Protein backbone atom coordinates (compact mmCIF):
# COMPACT_ATOMS: atom_id res chain seq x y z
CA UNK A 1 0.00 0.00 0.00
CA UNK A 2 1.37 3.43 -0.89
CA UNK A 3 1.24 6.26 1.58
CA UNK A 4 -1.48 7.96 -0.48
CA UNK A 5 -3.62 4.84 -0.39
CA UNK A 6 -3.10 4.55 3.35
CA UNK A 7 -4.05 8.20 3.82
CA UNK A 8 -7.23 7.66 1.80
CA UNK A 9 -8.17 4.65 3.92
CA UNK A 10 -7.59 6.54 7.19
CA UNK A 11 -9.63 9.48 5.90
CA UNK A 12 -12.35 7.02 4.92
CA UNK A 13 -12.48 5.72 8.51
CA UNK A 14 -12.88 9.27 9.76
CA UNK A 15 -15.60 9.98 7.19
CA UNK A 16 -17.67 7.10 8.57
CA UNK A 17 -17.48 8.58 12.08
CA UNK A 18 -18.08 12.17 10.99
CA UNK A 19 -20.11 11.97 7.78
CA UNK A 20 -20.57 15.74 7.57
CA UNK A 21 -16.84 16.32 7.10
CA UNK A 22 -15.19 16.67 3.68
CA UNK A 23 -12.30 14.38 4.60
CA UNK A 24 -10.43 15.17 1.38
CA UNK A 25 -10.14 18.81 2.44
CA UNK A 26 -8.58 18.15 5.84
CA UNK A 27 -5.06 19.45 6.39
CA UNK A 28 -2.86 16.46 7.04
CA UNK A 29 -0.33 18.36 9.14
CA UNK A 30 -2.75 20.23 11.40
CA UNK A 31 -4.31 18.88 14.58
CA UNK A 32 -7.24 16.71 13.60
CA UNK A 33 -9.39 17.63 16.57
CA UNK A 34 -9.00 21.32 15.75
CA UNK A 35 -10.53 20.60 12.34
CA UNK A 36 -13.19 18.04 13.20
CA UNK A 37 -15.53 18.04 16.19
CA UNK A 38 -14.61 14.68 17.76
CA UNK A 39 -15.41 13.77 21.34
CA UNK A 40 -13.82 10.88 23.21
CA UNK A 41 -16.44 8.44 21.93
CA UNK A 42 -15.90 9.54 18.30
CA UNK A 43 -12.14 9.30 18.74
CA UNK A 44 -12.40 5.75 20.11
CA UNK A 45 -14.81 4.79 17.32
CA UNK A 46 -12.31 6.20 14.81
CA UNK A 47 -9.52 4.05 16.30
CA UNK A 48 -11.83 1.03 16.19
CA UNK A 49 -12.59 1.78 12.51
CA UNK A 50 -8.86 2.00 11.72
CA UNK A 51 -8.36 -1.32 13.49
CA UNK A 52 -11.18 -2.93 11.52
CA UNK A 53 -10.10 -1.51 8.15
CA UNK A 54 -6.31 -1.69 8.36
CA UNK A 55 -5.78 -4.22 11.13
CA UNK A 56 -3.68 -1.73 13.08
CA UNK A 57 -4.51 -1.79 16.78
CA UNK A 58 -3.20 1.50 18.17
CA UNK A 59 -2.34 1.21 21.88
CA UNK A 60 -3.83 3.74 24.28
CA UNK A 61 -0.51 5.41 25.05
CA UNK A 62 0.36 5.80 21.34
CA UNK A 63 -3.10 7.06 20.42
CA UNK A 64 -2.74 9.93 22.88
CA UNK A 65 0.35 11.13 20.95
CA UNK A 66 -1.24 11.00 17.51
CA UNK A 67 -2.72 14.42 16.80
CA UNK A 68 -2.54 14.91 13.03
CA UNK A 69 -3.57 12.79 10.05
CA UNK A 70 0.11 12.62 9.01
CA UNK A 71 1.05 11.17 12.37
CA UNK A 72 -1.71 8.58 12.22
CA UNK A 73 -0.85 7.60 8.64
CA UNK A 74 2.88 7.39 9.49
CA UNK A 75 2.14 5.27 12.54
CA UNK A 76 -0.05 2.86 10.59
CA UNK A 77 2.53 2.76 7.76
CA UNK A 78 5.27 1.83 10.20
CA UNK A 79 3.16 -0.87 11.79
CA UNK A 80 2.19 -2.29 8.40
CA UNK A 81 5.75 -2.08 7.15
CA UNK A 82 4.78 -0.04 4.10
CA UNK A 83 5.04 3.57 2.96
Amino acid at each position, binding site marked *: MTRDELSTRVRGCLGRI*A*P*EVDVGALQSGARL*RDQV*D*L*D*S*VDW*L*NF*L*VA*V*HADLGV*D*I*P*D*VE*AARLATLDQIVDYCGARLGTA
Partner: protein
Amino acid sequence: MITFRLPSLGADMDKGTLLEWLVRPGDAVKKGDVVAIVDTTKAAIDVECWHDGTVEELLVEPGAEIPVGTVMAVLREGGETPEQVRAQIDALRASPVQMAVPSAAATQRSAAPAAAAAGRVRVSPAARKRAGELGVGVESIAGTGPDGAVTLADVEAAAAKVAPASRAEAMRQTIAAAMARSKREIPHYYLAEDVPLAVATAYLAERNASRSVTERLLLAPLLVQAVARAVQRYPEFNGFFRDGAFVPGPGVHCGVAIALRGGGLVAPALHDVPSRDIDTLNRELLDLVQRARAGSLKASELSDPTITVTSLGDQGVRSVFPIIYPPQVAIVGFGRVTERAWIVDGAVGPAPVVTASLGADHRVSDGHRGALLLAAVRELLQRPAELAKATP
Protein backbone atom coordinates in the same frame (compact mmCIF):
# COMPACT_ATOMS: atom_id res chain seq x y z
CA MET B 1 -57.08 -7.88 23.30
CA ILE B 2 -54.01 -5.73 23.65
CA THR B 3 -53.99 -2.15 22.46
CA PHE B 4 -50.60 -0.97 21.24
CA ARG B 5 -50.27 2.77 21.86
CA LEU B 6 -47.65 5.30 20.87
CA PRO B 7 -45.52 5.37 24.04
CA SER B 8 -44.08 8.42 25.68
CA LEU B 9 -41.01 9.58 23.81
CA GLY B 10 -39.57 11.64 26.64
CA ALA B 11 -40.78 14.79 28.30
CA ASP B 12 -40.14 17.02 25.35
CA MET B 13 -41.96 15.04 22.68
CA ASP B 14 -45.73 14.68 22.71
CA LYS B 15 -46.33 13.43 19.18
CA GLY B 16 -44.75 11.47 16.40
CA THR B 17 -45.22 10.61 12.74
CA LEU B 18 -45.48 6.94 11.85
CA LEU B 19 -42.83 6.22 9.22
CA GLU B 20 -43.13 2.49 8.86
CA TRP B 21 -44.69 -0.63 10.31
CA LEU B 22 -42.24 -3.49 10.81
CA VAL B 23 -45.07 -5.96 11.41
CA ARG B 24 -48.17 -6.98 9.46
CA PRO B 25 -51.50 -8.40 10.58
CA GLY B 26 -51.01 -12.03 11.51
CA ASP B 27 -47.41 -11.57 12.68
CA ALA B 28 -46.48 -12.91 16.10
CA VAL B 29 -44.90 -10.28 18.33
CA LYS B 30 -42.74 -10.90 21.39
CA LYS B 31 -42.26 -8.53 24.29
CA GLY B 32 -39.49 -6.06 23.40
CA ASP B 33 -39.80 -6.47 19.62
CA VAL B 34 -39.46 -3.30 17.58
CA VAL B 35 -42.75 -3.05 15.70
CA ALA B 36 -42.75 0.45 14.21
CA ILE B 37 -40.50 3.35 13.32
CA VAL B 38 -41.82 6.73 14.40
CA ASP B 39 -40.31 10.05 13.43
CA THR B 40 -40.03 12.83 16.01
CA THR B 41 -38.60 16.30 15.81
CA LYS B 42 -35.30 14.88 17.06
CA ALA B 43 -34.88 11.58 15.30
CA ALA B 44 -36.55 8.48 13.96
CA ILE B 45 -37.27 6.17 16.90
CA ASP B 46 -37.67 2.40 17.02
CA VAL B 47 -40.84 1.72 19.00
CA GLU B 48 -41.03 -1.55 20.91
CA CYS B 49 -44.10 -3.51 21.92
CA TRP B 50 -44.16 -4.71 25.53
CA HIS B 51 -46.60 -7.59 25.17
CA ASP B 52 -46.63 -10.97 23.50
CA GLY B 53 -49.41 -11.38 20.96
CA THR B 54 -50.47 -11.61 17.35
CA VAL B 55 -51.05 -8.48 15.28
CA GLU B 56 -54.76 -8.28 14.47
CA GLU B 57 -55.00 -4.88 12.84
CA LEU B 58 -52.89 -1.81 12.22
CA LEU B 59 -54.95 1.30 12.90
CA VAL B 60 -52.54 4.04 11.87
CA GLU B 61 -51.17 4.54 8.40
CA PRO B 62 -47.59 5.55 7.66
CA GLY B 63 -47.42 9.32 7.27
CA ALA B 64 -49.95 10.03 10.03
CA GLU B 65 -48.94 12.33 12.83
CA ILE B 66 -50.32 11.06 16.13
CA PRO B 67 -50.09 12.18 19.77
CA VAL B 68 -48.53 10.07 22.48
CA GLY B 69 -51.11 7.57 23.77
CA THR B 70 -52.86 6.96 20.44
CA VAL B 71 -53.85 3.35 19.80
CA MET B 72 -51.70 2.34 16.84
CA ALA B 73 -52.54 -1.32 16.56
CA VAL B 74 -54.50 -4.09 18.17
CA LEU B 75 -52.96 -7.41 19.15
CA ARG B 76 -54.67 -10.68 19.84
CA GLU B 77 -53.68 -12.47 23.02
CA GLY B 78 -53.26 -16.22 23.24
CA GLY B 79 -56.67 -17.86 23.59
CA GLU B 80 -58.58 -15.09 21.86
CA THR B 81 -60.28 -15.66 18.55
CA PRO B 82 -60.08 -13.11 15.72
CA GLU B 83 -63.88 -12.72 15.98
CA GLN B 84 -63.70 -11.70 19.63
CA VAL B 85 -61.02 -9.14 18.87
CA ARG B 86 -62.85 -7.76 15.84
CA ALA B 87 -65.88 -7.00 17.99
CA GLN B 88 -63.69 -5.14 20.45
CA ILE B 89 -61.98 -3.19 17.69
CA ASP B 90 -65.37 -2.07 16.41
CA ALA B 91 -66.31 -0.95 19.92
CA LEU B 92 -63.00 0.89 20.17
CA ARG B 93 -63.62 2.64 16.86
CA ALA B 94 -67.02 3.80 18.05
CA SER B 95 -65.37 5.57 20.95
CA PRO B 96 -62.71 8.10 19.93
CA VAL B 97 -61.99 8.74 23.61
CA GLN B 98 -60.74 5.18 23.92
CA MET B 99 -58.56 5.52 20.89
CA ALA B 100 -56.35 8.23 22.21
CA VAL B 101 -55.58 8.56 25.88
CA PRO B 102 -53.81 11.88 25.80
CA SER B 103 -50.74 12.50 27.86
CA ALA B 104 -50.88 15.68 29.92
CA ALA B 105 -48.81 17.49 27.34
CA ALA B 106 -50.95 16.38 24.44
CA THR B 107 -54.35 17.12 25.96
CA GLN B 108 -55.15 20.12 23.83
CA ARG B 109 -54.37 18.39 20.61
CA SER B 110 -55.84 15.02 21.31
CA ALA B 111 -59.33 15.36 19.87
CA ALA B 112 -58.55 15.72 16.21
CA PRO B 113 -55.68 13.21 16.06
CA ALA B 114 -57.84 10.69 17.91
CA ALA B 115 -60.31 10.90 15.10
CA ALA B 116 -57.48 10.64 12.60
CA ALA B 117 -56.33 7.42 14.21
CA ALA B 118 -59.81 6.04 13.74
CA GLY B 119 -59.69 7.02 10.08
CA ARG B 120 -62.17 9.87 10.42
CA VAL B 121 -60.18 12.72 8.95
CA ARG B 122 -60.50 12.25 5.23
CA VAL B 123 -57.23 12.87 3.46
CA SER B 124 -56.48 12.07 -0.14
CA PRO B 125 -53.44 9.80 -0.55
CA ALA B 126 -51.64 12.48 -2.55
CA ALA B 127 -52.35 15.04 0.17
CA ARG B 128 -51.12 12.67 2.88
CA LYS B 129 -47.93 11.97 0.95
CA ARG B 130 -47.30 15.66 0.35
CA ALA B 131 -48.03 16.43 4.01
CA GLY B 132 -45.40 13.90 5.02
CA GLU B 133 -42.87 15.47 2.66
CA LEU B 134 -43.60 18.95 3.97
CA GLY B 135 -43.74 17.88 7.60
CA VAL B 136 -47.31 19.11 8.06
CA GLY B 137 -49.73 17.30 10.37
CA VAL B 138 -52.89 16.58 8.35
CA GLU B 139 -55.15 16.52 11.41
CA SER B 140 -54.43 20.19 12.05
CA ILE B 141 -55.66 21.20 8.59
CA ALA B 142 -59.24 22.28 7.91
CA GLY B 143 -60.20 20.38 4.76
CA THR B 144 -62.06 22.05 1.90
CA GLY B 145 -62.79 18.91 -0.13
CA PRO B 146 -65.93 16.74 -0.11
CA ASP B 147 -67.08 15.97 3.46
CA GLY B 148 -64.29 18.17 4.75
CA ALA B 149 -61.60 16.02 3.20
CA VAL B 150 -58.10 17.45 3.24
CA THR B 151 -56.89 18.00 -0.31
CA LEU B 152 -53.47 18.47 -1.80
CA ALA B 153 -54.18 22.22 -2.10
CA ASP B 154 -55.10 22.38 1.60
CA VAL B 155 -51.79 20.78 2.53
CA GLU B 156 -49.82 23.17 0.33
CA ALA B 157 -51.64 26.15 1.81
CA ALA B 158 -51.05 24.95 5.37
CA ALA B 159 -47.37 24.35 4.66
CA ALA B 160 -47.02 27.87 3.28
CA LYS B 161 -48.48 29.30 6.49
CA VAL B 162 -46.25 27.30 8.80
CA ALA B 163 -42.71 28.04 7.70
CA PRO B 164 -41.24 24.79 6.42
CA ALA B 165 -39.38 23.74 9.54
CA SER B 166 -36.23 21.87 8.82
CA ARG B 167 -35.24 19.07 11.16
CA ALA B 168 -32.74 21.41 12.83
CA GLU B 169 -35.37 24.09 13.43
CA ALA B 170 -37.90 21.57 14.71
CA MET B 171 -35.33 20.11 17.08
CA ARG B 172 -34.40 23.55 18.33
CA GLN B 173 -38.05 24.27 19.05
CA THR B 174 -38.42 20.96 20.88
CA ILE B 175 -35.37 21.61 23.03
CA ALA B 176 -36.53 25.17 23.65
CA ALA B 177 -39.97 23.98 24.77
CA ALA B 178 -38.53 21.45 27.23
CA MET B 179 -35.95 23.85 28.62
CA ALA B 180 -38.44 26.72 28.88
CA ARG B 181 -40.74 24.41 30.83
CA SER B 182 -37.81 23.43 33.04
CA LYS B 183 -36.84 27.03 33.77
CA ARG B 184 -40.47 28.06 34.26
CA GLU B 185 -41.53 25.23 36.55
CA ILE B 186 -38.46 23.96 38.35
CA PRO B 187 -36.83 26.04 41.10
CA HIS B 188 -33.28 24.97 40.34
CA TYR B 189 -30.38 25.16 42.71
CA TYR B 190 -26.82 24.54 41.61
CA LEU B 191 -23.80 23.09 43.40
CA ALA B 192 -20.31 22.23 42.22
CA GLU B 193 -17.40 20.22 43.53
CA ASP B 194 -13.89 19.54 42.24
CA VAL B 195 -13.17 15.84 41.99
CA PRO B 196 -9.54 14.64 41.82
CA LEU B 197 -9.18 11.86 39.26
CA ALA B 198 -5.57 10.70 39.70
CA VAL B 199 -6.67 7.28 40.93
CA ALA B 200 -9.40 6.89 38.31
CA THR B 201 -7.21 7.91 35.36
CA ALA B 202 -4.38 5.66 36.58
CA TYR B 203 -6.87 2.81 36.85
CA LEU B 204 -8.06 3.40 33.27
CA ALA B 205 -4.50 3.71 31.93
CA GLU B 206 -3.55 0.42 33.55
CA ARG B 207 -6.65 -1.39 32.30
CA ASN B 208 -6.24 0.03 28.80
CA ALA B 209 -2.48 -0.51 28.43
CA SER B 210 -2.89 -4.13 27.43
CA ARG B 211 -6.25 -3.84 25.71
CA SER B 212 -7.20 -3.72 22.07
CA VAL B 213 -9.04 -0.59 20.90
CA THR B 214 -12.18 -2.70 20.69
CA GLU B 215 -12.16 -3.20 24.49
CA ARG B 216 -10.88 0.19 25.57
CA LEU B 217 -12.53 1.86 28.54
CA LEU B 218 -13.48 5.53 28.53
CA LEU B 219 -13.75 7.76 31.58
CA ALA B 220 -17.40 8.57 30.86
CA PRO B 221 -18.87 5.24 32.06
CA LEU B 222 -17.01 5.60 35.37
CA LEU B 223 -18.52 9.07 35.82
CA VAL B 224 -22.01 7.79 34.96
CA GLN B 225 -21.61 4.85 37.35
CA ALA B 226 -20.44 7.16 40.16
CA VAL B 227 -23.63 9.23 39.73
CA ALA B 228 -25.83 6.11 39.57
CA ARG B 229 -24.37 4.63 42.77
CA ALA B 230 -24.54 8.02 44.51
CA VAL B 231 -28.27 8.46 43.78
CA GLN B 232 -28.87 5.00 45.23
CA ARG B 233 -27.73 6.53 48.53
CA TYR B 234 -29.75 9.72 47.99
CA PRO B 235 -32.83 8.51 46.11
CA GLU B 236 -34.60 11.88 46.16
CA PHE B 237 -32.47 12.83 43.16
CA ASN B 238 -33.60 9.84 41.11
CA GLY B 239 -37.14 10.02 39.76
CA PHE B 240 -39.82 12.41 38.63
CA PHE B 241 -41.88 15.34 39.83
CA ARG B 242 -45.43 14.58 38.73
CA ASP B 243 -48.78 16.02 39.77
CA GLY B 244 -47.27 18.05 42.55
CA ALA B 245 -45.24 15.28 44.16
CA PHE B 246 -41.97 13.42 43.85
CA VAL B 247 -42.19 9.90 42.46
CA PRO B 248 -39.04 7.79 42.95
CA GLY B 249 -37.59 6.19 39.82
CA PRO B 250 -38.32 2.49 39.25
CA GLY B 251 -34.57 1.89 38.94
CA VAL B 252 -31.55 4.03 38.15
CA HIS B 253 -31.76 4.76 34.44
CA CYS B 254 -29.17 7.40 33.58
CA GLY B 255 -29.97 9.66 30.68
CA VAL B 256 -26.80 10.60 28.84
CA ALA B 257 -26.81 13.96 27.07
CA ILE B 258 -25.43 13.35 23.57
CA ALA B 259 -24.66 16.20 21.20
CA LEU B 260 -25.72 15.38 17.66
CA ARG B 261 -23.64 16.17 14.62
CA GLY B 262 -25.24 19.12 12.91
CA GLY B 263 -26.59 20.48 16.20
CA GLY B 264 -29.09 19.61 18.86
CA LEU B 265 -28.99 16.91 21.48
CA VAL B 266 -30.79 13.90 22.85
CA ALA B 267 -30.51 12.30 26.29
CA PRO B 268 -31.43 8.61 25.99
CA ALA B 269 -31.12 6.25 28.96
CA LEU B 270 -28.63 3.63 29.98
CA HIS B 271 -30.83 1.19 31.89
CA ASP B 272 -30.23 -0.18 35.41
CA VAL B 273 -26.76 1.35 35.57
CA PRO B 274 -25.80 0.17 39.11
CA SER B 275 -26.18 -3.47 38.06
CA ARG B 276 -23.69 -3.14 35.20
CA ASP B 277 -19.99 -3.88 35.36
CA ILE B 278 -17.81 -1.24 33.76
CA ASP B 279 -17.08 -3.16 30.54
CA THR B 280 -20.80 -3.66 29.94
CA LEU B 281 -21.55 -0.03 30.70
CA ASN B 282 -18.72 1.12 28.41
CA ARG B 283 -20.07 -1.02 25.58
CA GLU B 284 -23.63 0.15 26.14
CA LEU B 285 -22.53 3.79 26.21
CA LEU B 286 -20.56 3.51 22.96
CA ASP B 287 -23.51 1.78 21.33
CA LEU B 288 -25.96 4.39 22.62
CA VAL B 289 -23.88 7.32 21.36
CA GLN B 290 -23.43 5.71 17.97
CA ARG B 291 -27.13 4.93 17.63
CA ALA B 292 -28.16 8.39 18.84
CA ARG B 293 -26.01 9.96 16.13
CA ALA B 294 -27.19 7.50 13.51
CA GLY B 295 -30.83 8.14 14.48
CA SER B 296 -31.79 4.67 15.66
CA LEU B 297 -32.84 5.03 19.28
CA LYS B 298 -35.59 3.04 20.95
CA ALA B 299 -38.67 4.64 22.47
CA SER B 300 -37.93 3.13 25.89
CA GLU B 301 -34.51 4.77 25.89
CA LEU B 302 -36.03 8.20 25.40
CA SER B 303 -38.83 7.89 27.93
CA ASP B 304 -37.03 6.12 30.77
CA PRO B 305 -34.28 8.35 32.21
CA THR B 306 -34.67 8.92 35.95
CA ILE B 307 -31.68 11.30 36.15
CA THR B 308 -29.43 12.78 33.48
CA VAL B 309 -25.65 12.99 33.27
CA THR B 310 -24.07 15.50 30.94
CA SER B 311 -20.37 15.35 30.24
CA LEU B 312 -18.92 18.06 28.07
CA GLY B 313 -15.93 15.84 27.37
CA ASP B 314 -12.31 16.58 26.77
CA GLN B 315 -12.97 19.27 24.16
CA GLY B 316 -15.23 21.18 26.48
CA VAL B 317 -14.96 23.67 29.31
CA ARG B 318 -14.21 23.41 32.99
CA SER B 319 -17.74 23.33 34.36
CA VAL B 320 -21.37 23.22 33.32
CA PHE B 321 -24.51 24.65 34.99
CA PRO B 322 -26.94 21.94 33.94
CA ILE B 323 -30.67 22.41 33.35
CA ILE B 324 -33.00 19.63 34.49
CA TYR B 325 -35.02 17.67 31.93
CA PRO B 326 -38.58 17.69 33.27
CA PRO B 327 -40.12 15.66 34.81
CA GLN B 328 -36.75 14.55 36.21
CA VAL B 329 -35.53 16.28 39.37
CA ALA B 330 -31.76 16.35 39.00
CA ILE B 331 -28.94 16.48 36.48
CA VAL B 332 -25.23 16.02 37.11
CA GLY B 333 -22.67 17.63 34.81
CA PHE B 334 -18.97 17.06 34.32
CA GLY B 335 -16.60 19.50 32.70
CA ARG B 336 -13.27 18.80 31.02
CA VAL B 337 -10.63 16.93 32.97
CA THR B 338 -7.76 19.39 33.47
CA GLU B 339 -4.37 19.20 35.10
CA ARG B 340 -4.52 21.49 38.11
CA ALA B 341 -2.32 22.37 41.03
CA TRP B 342 -3.67 20.13 43.76
CA ILE B 343 -2.63 19.79 47.38
CA VAL B 344 -2.07 16.30 48.72
CA ASP B 345 -0.65 15.87 52.23
CA GLY B 346 0.44 19.50 52.38
CA ALA B 347 2.35 19.46 49.11
CA VAL B 348 1.25 21.07 45.85
CA GLY B 349 1.47 18.87 42.79
CA PRO B 350 -0.20 18.42 39.41
CA ALA B 351 -3.34 16.30 39.34
CA PRO B 352 -6.13 15.57 36.88
CA VAL B 353 -9.30 17.15 38.26
CA VAL B 354 -12.87 17.36 36.98
CA THR B 355 -15.55 19.74 38.23
CA ALA B 356 -18.81 17.92 38.94
CA SER B 357 -21.92 20.08 39.14
CA LEU B 358 -25.49 19.43 40.17
CA GLY B 359 -28.68 21.08 39.04
CA ALA B 360 -31.50 19.93 41.32
CA ASP B 361 -35.15 20.63 42.03
CA HIS B 362 -35.85 22.59 45.22
CA ARG B 363 -39.39 21.18 45.34
CA VAL B 364 -37.82 17.80 46.12
CA SER B 365 -34.42 18.34 47.74
CA ASP B 366 -32.22 21.05 49.16
CA GLY B 367 -28.60 22.07 49.05
CA HIS B 368 -27.50 20.06 52.03
CA ARG B 369 -28.60 16.77 50.47
CA GLY B 370 -27.27 17.91 47.10
CA ALA B 371 -23.88 18.52 48.69
CA LEU B 372 -23.92 15.01 50.15
CA LEU B 373 -24.74 13.63 46.71
CA LEU B 374 -21.79 15.36 45.04
CA ALA B 375 -19.53 14.33 47.92
CA ALA B 376 -20.61 10.74 47.30
CA VAL B 377 -19.76 11.10 43.59
CA ARG B 378 -16.31 12.38 44.55
CA GLU B 379 -15.75 9.61 47.06
CA LEU B 380 -16.93 6.84 44.70
CA LEU B 381 -14.54 8.04 42.01
CA GLN B 382 -11.62 7.53 44.41
CA ARG B 383 -12.36 3.78 44.37
CA PRO B 384 -12.64 3.01 40.64
CA ALA B 385 -12.03 -0.73 41.00
CA GLU B 386 -15.13 -1.03 43.18
CA LEU B 387 -17.08 1.20 40.84
CA ALA B 388 -16.13 -1.10 37.96
CA LYS B 389 -17.78 -4.12 39.54
CA ALA B 390 -21.46 -4.85 39.10
CA THR B 391 -23.61 -4.67 42.19
CA PRO B 392 -26.47 -7.12 42.67
